[in-house]
């Protein structure tokens, strides 16, 4: 019934589309090309595909230099290796220098389930979010990955986009307007708001649909841009529904929940319940089972929402 797509293939197609339109785009690989969706780009534009080998820190510096010369570099690899690993270079060479460079982290969150904590990325948004002027994208469905990719190249300035590794379902019925920094209401409701992002947006929507069957009408907001965050849509949700549950595949500290709490606590304080990864290194195992460990499956999210509403 549901249609799924591989996020990396989706990104690959969108990158090719963008690159055909803009010859300034160059792709930088740290022995990460094929796994990150660069293959179609490489085939079409071999001269614009640059391979550096396993040197994530060096590659960020090269991207900064290329940007200075008018190129639009995109660096893509396993999420943690393009964020945590070269963090200072990202902060100084891209953020501080305000370079027009695009970073793409794939296999983000715990979607690289079986490879363990060295390959999980649960803090990428939190740490890059501290860099002034950085835009953070967290698309939640295949169509949105395409739109976010195209928007990322249109936008002038440093951008980080994270995608997962597991196939994800199409959540949108058809065309819809995508704008960096503008959240999207995926389900209407007045009883409670669920704010979600990225890989687990699908879980939040499924939870909302479960709750509807129980007569509870939840609003679902998709925050596909974690920075700059859409304050308006959040404050409106706080005002109209009174309680917010956040759903994310991130560490709670510094993640979506923290950002939502920051916004509503200063502008319209309401109780916020956060679902995500607590203060722990996540083990290995089947992806869906790992999500369940942290209450990220639809039934669990629905249960948390019900308990929260009753309080």
């Amino acid at each position: 019934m549901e249609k799924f797509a591989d996020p990396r293939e989706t990104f690959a197609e969108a990158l090719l589309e963008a690159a055909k339109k803009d010859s300034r785009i160059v792709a930088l690989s740290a022995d990460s090309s094929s796994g990150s969706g660069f293959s179609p780009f490489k085939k079409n534009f071999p001269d614009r595909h640059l391979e550096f080998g396993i040197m994530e820190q060096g590659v960020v510096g090269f991207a900064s230099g290329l940007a200075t010369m008018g190129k639009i570099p995109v660096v893509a690899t396993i999420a943690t290796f393009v964020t945590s690993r070269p963090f200072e270079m990202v902060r100084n060479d891209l953020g501080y220098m305000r370079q027009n460079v695009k970073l793409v982290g794939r296999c983000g969150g715990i979607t690289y389930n079986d490879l363990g904590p060295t390959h999980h990325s649960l803090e990428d948004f939190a740490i890059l979010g501290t860099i002034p002027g950085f835009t953070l994208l967290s698309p939640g469905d295949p169509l949105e990955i395409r739109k976010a990719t195209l928007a990322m190249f249109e936008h002038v300035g440093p951008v980080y986009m994270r995608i997962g590794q597991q196939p994800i379902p199409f959540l949108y019925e058809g065309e819809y307007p995508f704008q960096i920094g503008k959240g999207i209401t995926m389900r209407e409701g007045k009883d409670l708001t669920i704010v979600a992002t990225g890989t687990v947006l699908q879980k939040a929507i499924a939870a909302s649909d479960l709750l509807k069957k129980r007569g509870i009408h939840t609003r679902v907001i998709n925050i596909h841009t974690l920075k700059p965050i859409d304050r308006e849509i959040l404050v409106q949700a706080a005002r109209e529904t009174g309680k917010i549950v956040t759903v994310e595949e991130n560490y709670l500290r510094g993640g979506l929940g923290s950002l939502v709490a920051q916004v509503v606590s200063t502008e319209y304080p309401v109780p916020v319940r956060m679902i995500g990864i607590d203060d722990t290194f996540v083990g290995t195992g089947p992806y869906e089972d790992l999500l369940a460990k942290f209450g990220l499956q639809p039934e669990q999210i629905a249960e948390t929402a019900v308990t929260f509403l009753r309080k």
Partner: protein
Amino acid sequence: MNQISEQDVKRLERIAVQIRRNILRMIKVYGKGHLGGAMSAADIVTALYFQIMRIRPEEPKWKDRDRFVLSAGHKCLVLYAALAERGYFNKDLLDTYGAMDSKFPGHPDMHKLPGVETNTGALGHGLSIAGGMALGAKLDGSDVKVYVVMGDGELAEGSNWEAAAACAKYQLENLLVFVDKNELQISGSTKEVMNYDPLPDKWKAFGWAVREIDGHNMREILDVATRFPFEKGKPSVVIAHTVKSKGFSFAEGKASYHYWKVTPEELAQAERDLAEMERRLQ
């Protein structure tokens, strides 16, 4: 110690087949895994765990044990295979590879499995940690030795060369590094992806004593491992020329088997290849 008999070499060669069998066992259970780099390092790791290192499997935290650092953590199947074979834990546990909260994650975790010394998986970190271990032993006047296995693609990480300089500065004679030079990484030929040849010259320039061997020749592995430091006052590095996925005919020397998603035909061929290796060693 330097007197290693032909019989010993044969014994170790047979164990190396068993190590490869253990690797296959895990991949078979889960259906996939990092094959190539585990297989190319199998003979070196066998020599270390079954002849060279001073260890007590029944007392994995023994203070005076030699340390093994698998810098290229994705090669972990060869480490799990060796630890199991050496008796650090019940071999049947290998069948939990890939299961929920398995003691055998896709990259090694020292808090999960006895005998694992470091958490690696992010490439380019191992040599610094190993350098710290070797330096610690030296500061204590201990005779503990530290052994490292690195990948050749991994050498592109600049952090390795920071560590290389520091190990030379501190004259870590108790450190022996094997570079598993299988000439391949994920994107293909290491020479083409990012060339670091000639490796011996680079390491020498950083102040190391260097040897080159065939990394699948047990006698050559044992020779270097029993004769270091190669030069006084220097850390030692062995450039081990190897074949990625060594032992499995369908996968040898092919970048695409860095990570293997098994097919029934390949599994059958892998079994036949192991049987053939065993027969040749009779």
